[in-house]
């Protein structure tokens, strides 16, 4: 009985962590090129609505999922235009993007509230699902969860072993030096920001296509902000984003299950845990002053040249 609950808890952690994982990976990519985009929540909301609408009207959830990603990238494009093109402050632009994205999604989505669209359903992987413990925890989910498993290793390989990956990182560290070395820094920044928005949009689309199959106002419910926090929790390392996203998803699932079993701990206190832990982890990492891959030029714009 208790082992069973433990397994379902971990499975739930994986599922509720997945939308956050997509968004966190996106924000890692964005911050790696030295751009801070606090508009994740807005991009997720727009991604959720677009994914839902496209799936509803075409009947094809795969198309919806991809469209959700593109809509996130479109919003990220605005951020890029304001910050990289026009030298606007990244923090303020990101906040404005959250306000705009949430507003747009709720505005356009009002007539579709509570309607359903075709989405993704659990799809067990034939052999792997039989593995004791790992099978039910990892391999009895929907397709999008499996896709999310693949992204961090790919990102890790990209940053570590490919030339564009290394160049991309150098852009986030020393944009001026990278420029001198002949790297087209601005181009990399754009790529990072757009891809980041794409992934955040996918995270949003996950909410309306797989986690649930419906649209309602405020669907994202603050998950975008959690993703921003988890980037630090993960030390800007894609492989550690797993840990952060599933931990956060797990705390949510855990507090609900604590109640279901019949214990009584005020949920507000429990919900504080991830945020307090993020601060603690950040302090711990900063105290060691290494181990975290914080991009040195994060949040700093590049002056345009003649």
């Amino acid at each position: 009985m208790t082992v069973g609950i433990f397994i379902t808890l971990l499975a739930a952690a994986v599922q509720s962590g997945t939308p956050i994982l997509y968004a966190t990976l996106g924000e890692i990519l964005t911050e790696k090129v030295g751009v801070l985009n606090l508009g994740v929540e807005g991009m997720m909301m727009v991604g959720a609505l677009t994914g839902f609408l496209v799936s509803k009207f075409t009947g094809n959830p795969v198309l919806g999922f991809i469209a959700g990603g593109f809509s996130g990238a479109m919003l990220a494009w605005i951020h890029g235009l304001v910050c990289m093109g026009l030298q606007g402050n990244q923090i303020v632009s990101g906040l404005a993007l959250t306000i705009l994205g949430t507003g747009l999604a709720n505005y356009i989505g009002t007539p579709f509230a509570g309607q359903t669209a075709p989405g993704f359903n659990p799809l067990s992987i034939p052999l792997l699902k039989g593995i004791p413990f790992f099978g039910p925890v990892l391999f009895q989910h929907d397709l999008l969860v499996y896709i999310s498993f693949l992204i961090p290793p790919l990102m890790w390989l990209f940053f570590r072993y490919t030339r564009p990956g290394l160049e991309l990182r150098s852009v986030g560290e020393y944009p001026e030096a990278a420029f001198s070395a002949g790297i087209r820094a601005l181009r990399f920044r754009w790529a990072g920001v757009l891809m980041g928005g794409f992934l955040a949009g996918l995270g949003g689309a996950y909410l309306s296509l797989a986690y649930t199959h419906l649209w309602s106002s405020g669907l994202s419910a603050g998950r975008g902000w959690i993703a921003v926090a988890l980037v630090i929790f993960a030390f800007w390392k894609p492989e550690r984003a797993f840990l952060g996203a599933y931990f956060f998803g797990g705390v949510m699932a855990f507090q609900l299950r604590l109640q279901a079993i019949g214990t009584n701990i005020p949920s507000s206190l429990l919900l504080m845990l991830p945020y307090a832990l993020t601060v603690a982890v950040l302090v711990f990492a900063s105290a060691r002053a290494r181990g975290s891959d914080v991009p040195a030029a994060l949040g700093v714009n590049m002056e345009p040249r003649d």
Partner: protein
Amino acid sequence: MYRFKITKRQETSIWHSCLIFFGALAISLSFGSIILALQGKPPIGGLTYLFKGAFGDLWALEDCLIKGLPIFLCSIGVAIAFRLQVWNIGAEGQFAMGSIGATWLALVFPDQPQYLLLPGMMGASMLAGALWGLIPALLKIRMRTNEIIVTLMMNYLAIYILDYLVYGPWKDPTSFGFPMTAQFSPGAILPMIGNTRLSLGLWLCIFFGIAYWVFFRFTRLGFELKASGENMKAAKYARIPYNTLVILVMVMGGALAGTAGFVESSANLNRLQPSIMAGYGYTAIVVAWIARLNPLFIALASFLLAGLRVGVEHLQLDLQVPAAFGDIMEGLILLTVLASAFFEKYRIGLRKPA
């Protein structure tokens, strides 16, 4: 093929800045009217309703002022930190802690006379807000942690603490189980100015606004702060160590956001309840930035953004436009104004192909 040529402007005139600002505003408004038109609502008429609702009556102006007060206080709070290039985005949490501090005193000493209780509540709120600002400041200078993230996380912590208190120990037994504290005693409620619905919080705002201006204009400390923010080298030669300045700006910012929490809970809500958190702390950041950290512009921008919110309520009544329209407009205005600053600093010309 012609290409754009970007050159830095040597100087900018006030008129040029104004032109660009209003140009940005016009662009965002036209986007807004397109959105209205797409929904089949009259675009120009809609904007007219919005303006009339927000600024068309004396009482509407009063409404905008009431809603603008907390935004203003939070905004000059974060503006102080921005002057030093310290990114305090924790006004939301400091606001929450301020309201908790004020409420605590109001609940513990309900029978104290007003002249003791109100200053006490204000002190408690400033203290609580300042403390909430001090923690990220200490972490920043001791541990070199990123203040953006710490302040953001501490917003959540503060809101959950508030949640815990109003759902738990501070819940009013006569509220039929609803999450709110008991109503404050008359001594704990900020009096109104004359016959208006504006509380004495307005004088507080004016006082802090002027103090902010005097501080940066006439005091040596304010000057050093500004200089250190503009140039890290200057910070090294400043009389006061940079670390002390960081603590100072975060504590002052926290105290101001805390005061906003006091005004909102005492004058407007007369109790503490979760709906006190209306996102003022986040709006304040954008307000501070588009106002270029200038106290007069901050006041104006707070008033205008409050007006946008009030106007959208009227727009809803007149045209049944979803409330989210206000968010869209706010986002659009902020982005266009933010982007427009570029055209003040730089001149864009066309360059002939080489």
